[in-house]
């Protein structure tokens, strides 16, 4: 009888010990590599964590310099995360049905606790995201980071850029106010604009891609409940999922392509580190051999080279990333306290907004659409996208990779291109505003002529010729690409500013909204 009693007590004792040890073991199980108090343990910590292991465990000091990336990629990601969180919160109250949608936004604005604030953050973060993604693209371009082996990631990045604009555009309709309704009407008409060509050729009856595109976008002949549901679904599900998936690929490719781009002589250009910063990294014997090195692309890992110019990602890189995240949040939150997201009158199909303006980043396109919808809205943007996509495959040079304005021509070429880009855009716009265009001179000219010859196509042609001239003049594709990117960026800025600040009712030029006619 006595033996089982002792066993029972032992079991109870074990149970008690386990219970006592449970919190410690929970911590152990969670932080499997122990307290990250040595570089080795920190590396293991990053390595064995699903969310952190997108980073390499050590980061080059060049990458950590603010001038390398300015944190723009992380800022874009941060803005996306902010829109994601605030967007989900808004979905609790938003009702995607015409008229009811408008009322629900009013309720969010007036009675949902901090609803107005959350909607403001959502709106501002979306705008910050668009700005950040454009700047990020410019950074990658000007540091020639798209070059081999990063061509594919450049293409992924372009996809992310397009989806970002798509997310903004679909979100624009959801409040169902006048602003939204008429901006989407314009968008739908741009989708229909291939009819400009098919009508001129007289083939619309049996070949109508424009009408099909419009129907695909709206799900109906008019902007109504189908369009709203469609845009809602795109905005809250399809596009965010696509964006998140591509973001994953984008980040993963950064690692696979060898981390952040840096000049070949980056090591020698970094300031030497102070003596107390230099300490041996691999104090413990390596636990594994380098068998995996056989399948790692590029130069083999740090065999035979000291890791002196790398730092453990944890905490150096993480502090930098979190700092950018919090700075982006600070900007979005600060702007949200200053300025409310717009909400105009309830959408009214009978009363057109005049001028009906798209979101600001589309106003450059709308400026060109004013002349020809199909060229301004579809032709030229497609050309730009194709051109951007081709750049890494045309520029196969190596000089200047990883340096700001690196490559043939350098900053002087960019400076010259800024001047050319701004001047030609402003001059063409000034000419059109002062003297009008073909339609004003010859009222009966076929639309096809204007489709082919309009300020937008003319500007594109000038930019294209300038870039070809640069290639010949500097005997370098990089020089041509740098010129082309710069002039298009300048054209975008000029057209956007004119579209935003100087266009009034019927898209007529006004120096200030105060001069707009009152009726």
């Amino acid at each position, binding site marked *: 009888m006595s033996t089982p009693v002792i066993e029972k007590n032992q079991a109870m004792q074990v149970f008690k010990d386990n219970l006592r040890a449970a919190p410690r073991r929970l911590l152990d199980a969670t932080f499997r590599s122990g307290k990250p108090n040595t570089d080795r343990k920190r590396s293991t910590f990053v390595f064995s964590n699903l969310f952190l292991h997108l980073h390499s465990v050590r980061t080059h000091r060049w990458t*950590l310099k603010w001038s390398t990336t300015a944190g723009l990629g992380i800022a874009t990601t941060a803005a996306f995360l902010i829109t994601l969180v605030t967007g989900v919160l808004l979905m609790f109250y938003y009702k995607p049905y015409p008229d009811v949608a408008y*009322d629900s936004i*009013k*309720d969010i604005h*007036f*009675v949902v*606790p*901090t*609803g*107005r*604030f959350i909607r403001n953050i959502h709106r501002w973060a979306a705008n910050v995201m668009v700005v950040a993604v454009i700047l990020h693209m410019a950074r990658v371009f000007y540091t020639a980071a798209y070059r081999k082996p990063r061509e594919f990631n450049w293409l992924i990045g372009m996809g992310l850029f397009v989806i970002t604009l798509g997310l903004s555009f679909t979100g624009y309709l959801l409040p169902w*106010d*006048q602003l939204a309704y008429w901006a989407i009407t314009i968008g739908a008409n741009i989708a229909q604009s291939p009819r400009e060509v098919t009508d001129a050729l007289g083939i619309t009856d049996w070949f109508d891609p424009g009408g099909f595109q419009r129907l695909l976008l709206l799900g109906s002949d008019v902007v109504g409940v189908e369009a709203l549901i469609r845009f809602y679904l795109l905005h809250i599900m399809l596009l965010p999922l696509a964006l998140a998936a591509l973001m994953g690929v984008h980040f993963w490719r950064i690692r696979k392509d060898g981390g952040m781009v840096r000049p070949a002589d980056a090591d020698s250009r970094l300031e030497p580190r102070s003596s107390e910063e230099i300490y041996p990294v691999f104090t413990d014997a390596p636990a594994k051999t380098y068998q995996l090195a056989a399948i790692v692309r590029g130069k083999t890992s740090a065999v035979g080279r000291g890791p002196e110019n790398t*730092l453990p990602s944890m*905490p*150096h890189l993480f*502090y*930098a990333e*979190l*700092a950018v995240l*919090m*700075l982006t*949040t*600070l900007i979005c*939150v*600060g702007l*949200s*306290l200053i300025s409310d997201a717009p*909400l*105009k*009158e309830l959408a009214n199909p009978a009363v057109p907004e005049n001028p009906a303006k798209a979101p600001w980043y589309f106003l450059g396109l709308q400026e060109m659409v004013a002349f020809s919808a199909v060229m301004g809205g579809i032709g030229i943007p497609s050309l730009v996208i194709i051109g951007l996509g081709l750049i890494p495959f045309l520029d196969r040079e190596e000089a200047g990779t990883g340096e700001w304005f690196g490559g043939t021509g350098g900053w002087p070429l960019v400076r010259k291109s800024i001047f050319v880009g701004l001047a030609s855009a402003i001059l063409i716009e000034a000419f059109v505003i002062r003297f009008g265009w073909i339609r004003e001179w010859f009222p009966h000219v076929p639309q096809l002529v204007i489709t082919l010859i309009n300020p937008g196509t003319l500007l594109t042609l000038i930019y294209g010729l300038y870039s070809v001239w640069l290639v010949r003049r500097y005997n370098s594709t990089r020089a041509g690409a740098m010129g082309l990117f710069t002039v298009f960026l300048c054209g975008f800025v000029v057209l956007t500013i004119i579209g935003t600040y100087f266009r009034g009712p019927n898209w007529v030029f006004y120096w200030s909204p105060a001069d707009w006619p*009152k*009726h």
Partner: protein
Amino acid sequence: MNRNKHLLLWSSVGVFILLVMAAANENLGREWRQIQGTARSTEGAPEGAMDVHLRQVINPGLNISDRCVSCHVGMAPGEQGITGDRVLAAHKAVVHQPAEFGCTVCHGGQGRATDKADAHGDVHFWPQPMIPIKYAYAGCGTCHTPLKVPNSGILEKARGVFERLDCLACHRVDGRGATIRPGGGGLEGPDLSSAGFKGFDSGWYEKHLKQSGEAQNGPWKASFGAISEEDRGALTTYLSTRVGSSKLVEAKAAFNSSGCLGCHKVSGVGGDAGPDLSRAGEKDPGILDFTHVPGSRTFALWLGEHFRSPAAIVPGSAMPMMGLTENQIDLLTMYVLSLRRRELPGAYLPKDRVQVLRFGAREFSTDGATIFSAICSGCHGADGKGRRYAGS
């Protein structure tokens, strides 16, 4: 690393401070909270009533969520209000209970809003600001339209007959009458303020005469006697225009005296020379040109100036200067403000509107004099001798 660490610390601190600020401001700093807080401590506030919380009147049938009662807390359902206080008083007794019909159906404004400027609609992008309290009864026009309204002359005459025959001795109309006078008889008869809307017995005269004949003494004997047929006609006209808002009827009578329908249409009746006025009262002040209108930017003021001199307010307007008196301008302003519509479910659609929209009933009285003054007089003059407008 130190730099990034500090950046992280300070930006986090900044975000935290801004979030706390926003949370406090969005939740505690609301205007209605302060107003309700004051209401509780105002002298005369009922004990234990008016606790501070967001209030609203909801009626899904009318599609309203009116939060006006969050500030006008005395008008909230279940509250008694503080007499004498402009904001906190209870609503005066009306046919349409505010607890059911809410506020914005009659008064306009933005019911969902909880800030004063937004709620009163004095903001950009809210096309329907409140109807000025002076013209409050124009709000009836949202659902109702007084039928068979004669011109001002006929209406005044009918009122005169009603007063002269001393019907007010026993009946109450628009808040007057039915006061028992010492020695002079008098009796509490039915209130006739809504007789035109609710309908009245067409055999009233015979019944009155019979009762008066049977009476030996008292008010029936002393106060009632035979009435001529012409006077009876005037009384019928007067009664059929008693629809609960005498000022609106008066305004409509002024409209029916000014020949406006010669050029303008209302509910499908009238000329084509000017714009259709069926929903003119809904005009968004945000899209009106106020450059030539002195004073504040309200639609009522704009209308007044427009009646005085149409072409000065709307350049190129073909409408002549009508030479109206200030009183007429006031009445016409009220009438135009009443020209509004609202999507209503069948259960709420009043019969007067149904009669106009579905059965083609005329909104003006169909006697010759009224038809002439409402339509023809615009060009032919009030007496049919022609009309010349200043400057034309």
